[in-house]
């Protein structure tokens, strides 16, 4: 596993667990949780600077850009125009061409609007963005996103923040077999076994926020997720035994009385 690096658009990542930075009690807790998770990619949102209270600290003061890849998202965008605008703002703010593209379809489910996602992806790829799209667990859409030029796709496990875990392992498995770019399972993980399952299915990485930030002890959960993703990856590489309906004895019959 020493050389088991994740490579996306020529960038090498050491961790297969990526984390969001929302919902924490404060920046100190955010920083500790990220450190405990071992993640080297962290997602951030783009929002108005608070101009009335300049005493507020900035999240990025807590995150060393040399240590972490900062992945801005277009969270909160419900149409193509907004998503493209926020992506351009993120790039203008000067981190990189990387964007986690979200075009949401509905406030209750926060499911992606895949038609809008495809449209926004086309625009941004043309403008030189490295688009990592947050998408549904739909293999056809995933392939379309790759055809447009996405160097990875990010299908959901379950609705954002739902903690339901992998709801459609079969679709995710089909995406992993069909699509020849890294698959990052994004959103819906609830606990360590969910993350392990996503990795056992063959995901290249898992991205989560609420499962860690919303846990009673976020730092401990961050550590649990680190091991879960690592164990799931090892199990995937090791190759699990096939499922069988009946028993197969582990001990030999020879030598019995």
């Amino acid at each position, binding site marked *: 596993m020493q050389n088991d690096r994740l490579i996306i658009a020529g960038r090498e990542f050491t961790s297969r667990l990526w*984390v*969001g*930075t*929302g*919902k*924490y009690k404060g*920046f100190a807790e*955010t920083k500790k949780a990220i450190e405990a998770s071992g993640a080297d990619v962290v*997602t*951030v*949102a*783009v*929002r*108005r*600077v608070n*101009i*009335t209270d*300049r005493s507020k600290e*900035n*999240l*990025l003061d807590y995150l060393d850009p040399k240590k972490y890849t*900062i992945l*801005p*998202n277009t*969270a*909160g*965008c419900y149409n193509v125009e907004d998503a493209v605008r926020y992506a*351009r*703002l*993120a790039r*203008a*703010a*000067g*981190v990189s061409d990387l964007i986690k593209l*979200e075009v*949401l379809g509905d406030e209750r489910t*926060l499911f992606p609007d895949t038609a809008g996602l495809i449209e926004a992806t086309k625009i941004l790829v043309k403008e030189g963005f490295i688009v990592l799209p947050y998408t549904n667990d739909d293999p056809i859409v995933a392939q379309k996103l790759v055809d447009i030029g996405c160097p990875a796709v990010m299908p959901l496990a379950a609705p*954002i*923040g*739902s*903690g*339901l875990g992998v709801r459609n392992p079969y679709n995710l498995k089909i995406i992993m077999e069909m699509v020849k770019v890294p698959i990052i399972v994004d*959103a819906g993980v609830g606990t360590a076994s969910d993350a392990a399952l996503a990795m056992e299915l063959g995901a290249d990485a898992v*991205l*989560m*926020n*609420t499962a860690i*930030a*919303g846990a009673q002890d976020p730092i401990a959960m961050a550590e649990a997720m680190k091991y879960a993703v690592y164990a799931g990856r090892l199990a995937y590489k090791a190759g699990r035994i096939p499922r069988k309906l009946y028993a197969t004895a582990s001990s030999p019959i020879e030598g019995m009385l």
Partner: protein
Amino acid sequence: MAEAIQIQVNGEQRGCRADATVGDLLRELAIKTERVAVELNLEIMDRKDFDHCSLKQGDRVEILSFIGGGAPMDAQGKGRGFVHAE
């Protein structure tokens, strides 16, 4: 002293010197220019132009940066609690 003009910054009305540049505004607000994006009347600015671009009466300026975020609702600060499976 130069004549004052009214501009809108992040949705709020604000007075500023008629000869002020976007760079002056950022300095006045004590905003570091690295990792900040500025939109002037819906056009995203190149940071190289901050000190050359003078503000005009009625200009709409948006100053954005990165905040903690993963899920959309977190980022909007709404929070929506947890939905339990059972």
